[in-house]
């Protein structure tokens, strides 16, 4: 197992080595560089790159991009002590596969690296994403109609873990001919802005019950619109009552064995994610 740590700290690579030693994982080769311009062809598809995110988000994102440009198939994970939603979104948008929190928990790190390398090297079956466009269109329409905000689609990728990218997420369970869930996950500042625009008032900067209720209504409208667009297809579903989960790094499970598609959007300089996990019900039986 090869790991390349990009960090200007001498401590972080040692902490990474220590984590693998602690769990008695052998055959691990950890190398370190202080900056991304020192990578010099050290990244292959079998290398997991760890970017120590002690930088400005633009610098950190630049490092992720350089690593991916060096070898697109190499998984890149962010190591961050202050993994705020903005950091996570910037890293994922640049091509990172996930975030590992600092201080490093040995088990978390080893599991994340092993999973990232497995995902990067194993051949995946083609994922059918024919149902995703109605969700994208619905998201744009809800933001535009209710908030007067243009939501621009930035990136689409698959995500295995349950950790949400934002500080607050609106969740809608989907049942019927197709089963799964759709989640909209927003950083705190954007959630306050979106709900404020819906209500025509300043909601402040902190999550409160009113902002959370508004996020629930956003996912309710996105799911409802997509539902109407998917009528008479094998992806048709019914909706019920949305729920809202908040807190940085909160987790929401999705249906096992069903691809979990993340669409990153940008609006008014901030990022948010739409997560859709949906498959015809029969195929999950």
């Amino acid at each position: 197992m090869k790991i390349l740590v990009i960090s200007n700290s001498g401590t972080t690579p040692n902490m990474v080595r220590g984590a693998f030693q602690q769990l008695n994982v052998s055959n691990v080769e950890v190398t370190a560089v202080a900056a991304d311009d020192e990578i010099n062809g050290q990244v292959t598809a079998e290398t997991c790159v760890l970017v120590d995110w002690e930088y400005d988000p633009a610098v950190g994102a630049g490092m992720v991009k350089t690593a991916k440009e060096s070898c697109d198939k190499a998984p890149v994970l962010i190591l961050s002590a202050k993994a705020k939603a903005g950091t996570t979104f910037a890293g994922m948008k640049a091509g990172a596969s996930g975030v590992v929190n600092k201080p490093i928990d040995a088990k978390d790190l080893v599991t994340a690296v092993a999973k990232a390398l497995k995902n990067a090297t194993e051949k995946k079956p083609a994922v059918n994403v024919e149902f995703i466009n109605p969700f994208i269109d619905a998201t744009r329409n809800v933001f535009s109609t209710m908030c007067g905000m243009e939501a621009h689609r930035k990136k689409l990728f698959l995500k295995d873990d349950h950790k949400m990218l934002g500080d607050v997420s609106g969740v809608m369970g989907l049942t019927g001919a197709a089963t799964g869930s759709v989640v909209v996950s927003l950083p705190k500042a954007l959630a306050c802005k979106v709900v404020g625009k819906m209500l025509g008032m300043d909601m402040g900067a902190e999550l409160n019950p009113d902002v959370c209720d508004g996020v629930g209504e956003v996912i309710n409208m996105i799911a409802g619109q997509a539902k109407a667009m998917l009528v008479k297809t094998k992806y048709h579903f019914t909706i019920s009552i949305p729920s809202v989960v908040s807190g940085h790094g909160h987790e929401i499970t999705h249906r096992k064995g069903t691809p979990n598609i993340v669409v990153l959007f940008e609006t008014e300089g901030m990022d948010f994610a739409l997560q859709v996990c949906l498959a015809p019900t029969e195929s999950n039986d």
Partner: protein
Amino acid sequence: MAKILVVDDSSTMRRIITNTLKTIGQENIVEAADGVEGLATLTANPDVTLVLTDWNMPNMNGLDFLTKVRESNKTIPVIMITTEAEKQNVVTAIKAGANNYIVKPFTPEVLKEKLADFLD
């Protein structure tokens, strides 16, 4: 002067609707968070002249609420405001006695236009 009952489990949506109503001079508004509360509010406010209701709500959904309202009141205008945008849902609501149907998301202009026929 109209008195309007707004039934929706989302406080955000209730506020969006009431804010829009206030821009057209409709200040006499009562609110409820689900069908059960909606029925109780109607009983307590027999002078309500227009009902706006969501469809998907806990305890009692908007369709059941509408059906219950029609059991005792055939004439009060009831408008569904919902994300349930499929034609079949519209037909179901109209058959159950809804007078009009507004699909979320909506602009204030659409809301005002659809309510115009039911307001003084």
